[in-house]
């Protein structure tokens, strides 16, 4: 893959095949942690960190351990265990080494284990047969797309709090309708990138 192709892939992963609006990954944190702008940004950064790290570990695991041993079919089990322990490990390491970062991201880290975007992107990087650097770029770009989506959404929801929403629509229903409208706006990017 040439540099321009990688660049197209990155732009595409952020805007066109956005993890939330196109792939439907990570909807739970997307709806759960988007009530305030600050926490949305924190969640987005934590996802970017763990997603890149997860792909950095799962890619070699698949190609250097599972496949040579003929255990490719175990990748779902292996990946989820790796991601779960990685999150724990990152939490402990951050607590010791980077106190400031831990305080900023700490509470979002345990939530990430059940974020299907992490496992989904790790599996998609293998499925799409990207090489190692491209996989890392893809993971980071996907996470950037997630951050963009959740920050925009949180901005809208902060305003929505002050609106007079019909009682039956209050909470999750109106949030989903808003997400649908943002997804529609993102469709305008179709055709851009790859």
């Amino acid at each position, binding site marked *: 893959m040439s540099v321009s192709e990688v660049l197209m892939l990155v732009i595409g992963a952020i805007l066109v095949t956005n993890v939330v609006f196109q792939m439907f990954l990570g909807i*739970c944190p997307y*709806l759960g942690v988007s009530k305030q702008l600050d926490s949305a940004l924190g969640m987005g950064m934590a996802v970017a960190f763990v997603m890149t790290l997860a792909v950095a570990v799962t890619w070699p695991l698949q190609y250097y351990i599972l496949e040579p041993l003929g255990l490719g079919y175990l990748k779902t089990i292996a990946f989820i265990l790796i991601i779960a322990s990685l999150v724990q490990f990152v939490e402990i390491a951050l607590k010791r080494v980077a106190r400031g970062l831990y305080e900023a991201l700490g509470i979002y880290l345990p939530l990430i284990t059940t974020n*299907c975007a992490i*496992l*989904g992107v790790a599996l998609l990087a293998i499925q799409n047969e990207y090489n190692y650097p491209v996989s890392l770029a893809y993971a980071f770009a996907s996470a950037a797309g997630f951050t963009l989506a959740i920050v925009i959404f949180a901005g809208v929801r902060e305003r929505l709090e002050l609106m007079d929403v019909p009682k039956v629509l209050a909470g999750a*229903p109106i*949030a989903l309708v808003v997400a649908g409208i943002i997804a529609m706006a993102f469709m305008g990017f179709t055709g851009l990138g790859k």
Partner: protein
Amino acid sequence: MAKTNGSQEFLKGLWNENPVLRLLLGLCPTLAVTTTVQNGMGMGLAATFVLVCSNFVVSLIRGFIPARMRIPCFIVVIASFVTIVDLVLQGFFFELSKSLGVFVPLIVVNCIILGRAEAFASKYSLFRSLIDGLGMGVGFTLTLMLLGAVRELLGNGTIWGFVITPASFHPAIIMILPPGAFITLGLMIAAMNWIAQHAEQRAKTRLRAEQLARRGV
């Protein structure tokens, strides 16, 4: 919780504790695969199988797992059944497996399944865990099929692949694209809230009427 019988345990998954519409769990596959009724049903049945099996196994081994290690243990149990489903779908239902895509392995992180293992199967007997898993699974499947039906009808003019709309009907493609998924699910949850609100209102008026009648008014 004290005196629930089997049928109540089953029915709560369909309505009162419907995983998607009430608890807002498992939204990723719900939104992603419901472009047609078939896909919705395929996903629902695959998740139901994993849910019932993992509830069964988790309930069986609930006495042996140390409390602090339980989540990783549950994940291994769930991931094993998901791998079975994935391989079976690839082997025997290749078309379905292709259209569900990455969401088959992602049943592992479907919060409904881990949620039921943690909240129910690790505490209750084998029989009740099985019924609970079955009820939740059927509730999930029916919700997915309903959502799939609405989107397929409005977006493609068909249900289960059969054309049922007149030729003059122009399908709104947006319904089978991502925005349609978000908006339809949002309105479905709103409809559910509306029905629940009305039922509550009616129960209240009936109670009032009974009280008044008892007082002899």
